[in-house]
């Protein structure tokens, strides 16, 4: 293992399982919250206070925590019809270029979200019912987006893959 490999290994061993755990808990929480809210409303006349807002915040967390995971597995939807006829050197070049473009885009988005969080913090914006400070959530979104940018950087150093054979297995099979 060379000097440069260590941070990559860290990302795989620590960041990926951690984000997996976060997204699993958040999604299960979203499901449980919605069910409890509806059941509470119809059977006990007692909906959960702020359920609407909590769902929104959980959704944001879910999406942004999932992005580095999608990136590390190279699961973003890509046009790959030409892959079978693309020579290896060109594929490697495309892979590097695509990762670079995506790295810049996600990095820029992370920065924009950070600025937005600063604004929200300054204005003291909170959610309507629970008075949760939106700035904290937005900082989290920004950091997770930055992790996605790093994930693209890591991906760039990994060998380019040809079009994944879609066998309908777990990662591929459940899109639209």
């Amino acid at each position, binding site marked *: 293992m060379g000097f440069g490999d260590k941070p990559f290994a860290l990302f795989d061993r620590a960041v990926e399982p951690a984000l997996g755990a976060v997204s699993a808990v958040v999604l299960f929480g979203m499901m449980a919250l*919605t069910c409890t809210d509806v059941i509470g409303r119809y059977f006990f006349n007692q909906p959960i206070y702020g359920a609407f807002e909590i769902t929104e915040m959980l959704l944001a967390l879910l999406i942004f925590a999932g992005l580095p995971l999608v990136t590390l597995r190279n699961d973003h939807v*890509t046009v790959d019809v030409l892959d079978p006829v693309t020579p290896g050197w060109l594929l490697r070049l495309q892979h590097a270029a695509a990762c670079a473009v995506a790295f810049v885009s996600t990095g820029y988005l992370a920065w924009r979200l950070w600025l937005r969080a600063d604004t929200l913090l300054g204005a003291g914006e909170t959610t309507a019912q629970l008075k949760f400070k939106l700035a904290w959530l937005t900082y989290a979104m920004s950091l997770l987006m930055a992790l996605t940018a790093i994930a693209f950087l890591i991906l760039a150093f990994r060998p380019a893959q040809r079009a994944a054979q879609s066998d309908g297995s777990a990662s591929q099979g459940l899109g639209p």
Partner: protein
Amino acid sequence: MIETLAGFAIFLALALIRVPMAFAMGIVGFGGVAYMLSFNAASSMIGQITYETGMSYTLSVIPLFILMGNFVVRARLSDEIYHAAYCFLGHRRGGLAMSTIVASAGFGAICGSSIATAATFSKVSYPSMRRYGYADALAAGSIAAGGTLGILIPPSVIMVIYGILTETSVGKLFIAGILPGIAGTVLLCLAVRWMVWRDPAAGPPAEPHPWAERWASLRHVWPMIGLFVLVIGGIYVGAFTATEGAGIGAGGAFLFALWRRALTWRVLFEILVESARTTSMLFMILIGALMFASFINYTTMPADLKDFVTLFKDMPFLVVVAICVIYVVLGSAMEELSMILLTVPLFFPVVTGLGYDPVWFGVVIVIVVQIGLVSPPVGMNIFVVKNLLRNVDIVTVFRGVTPFMVALIALMALVVAFPPIATWLPGFMK
């Protein structure tokens, strides 16, 4: 006009160097808005879109329905649904292929993904069709085509995405898919009949089941029928929103999977993370597409198209037919989700401007996607089936899927010619 074409050209160039769709759309949208307005406007717009899409309550319907579908896939319910359909239809000529289609429709009623449905039935129904000596073309074709019913029969991921893109009620779209879904099931079964009429050896009948056994086979299916009725019925009568319905559906499917002992901690974790990943992937695309759509809205293209179309305002039907033809052609060459995301911002104002119902157009779009999924050479479902049935060659799948593609085109024609098939049921909703 020119700037839109330039935008599409740059998008194409980015997509061809394998930049993920989401970023290709987002970058073109960003660059376009920066060019039309200013860099600062584009910057704040992309920040705004990312933030608001991430925190939109309506959109939480997506992860919950995906989760519901994943629970159902893992609960191995597909075997029972197929068995039930098989008990009723298996003794007919081509009956196993018709069972596949009917079972796919039933499965699609709780799973909103056509790829997942096709993948599931490649494993469930192909072995029995092979055992009874079905032609590979018929077997593969019926699985690939049956899978597409997953997105027409609610719940449907594509409908949610269309609903968000066009601000159309997701609940109404779901309900609108029910009758066309049934019509589609019938048409696909007719395609099977046609294939066995052409070649009776392609689908020999299996031995009939006594009626007692037929009714008994339904016993295992009713909990899922109950869940469908609860979720879609609840949305229909307005007892809960689409998001709440999705939550209830996911919760119900979770309990169902528990009851079937399909869950270990490990499997549960996998299902959750898988669903989360699919959600993130879809959202990234959605954010890119929304940025792209804002750019399109600043160009003169939608207005130009509308002006152009007013020339035909006495024959709106012709415009719709033209759009359908464009979609069928595009769909055979393009990935369907990106096709929808790129074109709906252009076509939606045109079609609604002609006085057509947005819900109806949503159903047409879904059928167009179905056709694209089974049209050679790059239909997604064809490849899913091909990769799971390793001994079947691709030309056989192409051949097998063609009659079903014709049936789906007939379905599209039916819905275009008789809009009430889609709009009648949702008409009763508030």
